[in-house]
């Protein structure tokens, strides 16, 4: 499953690609929505791990504009529900992720991203 929570943790790791290699840009994607169990404690704990700009940018690419440009000070249920949906319920099933720096394409097939590199691309 490529959910935005996972996408927020993936960077390009091709040889020599060490700056501007995050976040990967989505391309030609198909998404599915699947309900997940809402766990507000997990979300509150996870917020410090999120690169917020990368998350809102990725959500926009998937057609979701429900999140504010900065995480609010008050983490109320309404906000956490939106965050829950964006992070955990949108699944990218097909398509690709492209490195903004070197242009390397990481394909996504049946919900599994292929992050492997050919031998000459390994740093």
């Amino acid at each position: 499953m490529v959910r935005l929570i996972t996408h927020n943790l993936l960077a390009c790791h091709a040889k020599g690609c060490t700056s501007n290699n995050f976040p990967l840009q989505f391309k030609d994607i198909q998404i599915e929505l699947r309900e997940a169990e809402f766990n507000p404690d997990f979300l509150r704990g996870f917020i410090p791990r999120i690169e917020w700009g990368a998350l809102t940018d990725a959500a926009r690419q998937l057609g979701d504009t429900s999140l504010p440009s900065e995480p609010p000070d008050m983490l109320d249920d309404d906000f956490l529900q939106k965050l829950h949906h964006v992070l955990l319920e949108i699944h990218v099933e097909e398509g690709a992720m492209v490195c903004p720096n070197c242009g390397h394409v990481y394909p996504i097939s049946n919900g599994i991203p292929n992050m492997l590199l050919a031998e000459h691309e390994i740093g």
Partner: protein
Amino acid sequence: MIPTPDLTHLNRGDYLHVYEPAEDTFILLDALEQDAEELRALAPLISLEIGFIGQILGSSGTLCITTDINPHACRCTQRTGIKNKIPIDPILASLSTPFYRRLQHAVDILTFNPPYVPTVFDEMEAAQVTAGITGSWAGGTDGMDITNVFLKQVEHLLSPTGRLYLVAVKENDVPGICERMRQEYGLQSTVVLHRRAGREHLFVVRFCR
């Protein structure tokens, strides 16, 4: 008590391409089960499992990521997640590489059941390129060629309270691994389980800060 994952969705055809859970899988599951209470108390946010073990750490409170170089193994992990109603994110990748930048000091539970069987270098290398079932066991010199690459990533990944559970066999020189991790990275180690299974003398070693 952590239930052993339901793997009835996997069949003979799958096990032509993916290593069938065996003693080394079960000793890792047993070690995690033994530490279950402590692990829950850690309230882990992120677990990263390298290689297919048939996941047990999942819940809505932990993000479970798995990596494997074998696409069949990734699909089996995906199906195991669905069968056991555990959200798992399988990623086709070598060790932790695509997460290395973003998961600095962020992984609470790291597990690795590596290809630990001593083989000639060429067999290990071919197994890595083919990314099939041989890659689940062919470990090269002393069975350590892949584990040695991974061990260099561990300190960078572990959160302040994070821990690594590593499967090893006697031929890997467990005391040597522990000493190296202490000297080079200041990580403490404990052998949490060891047992004999046929010709193999298996260990699970836990590393933490």
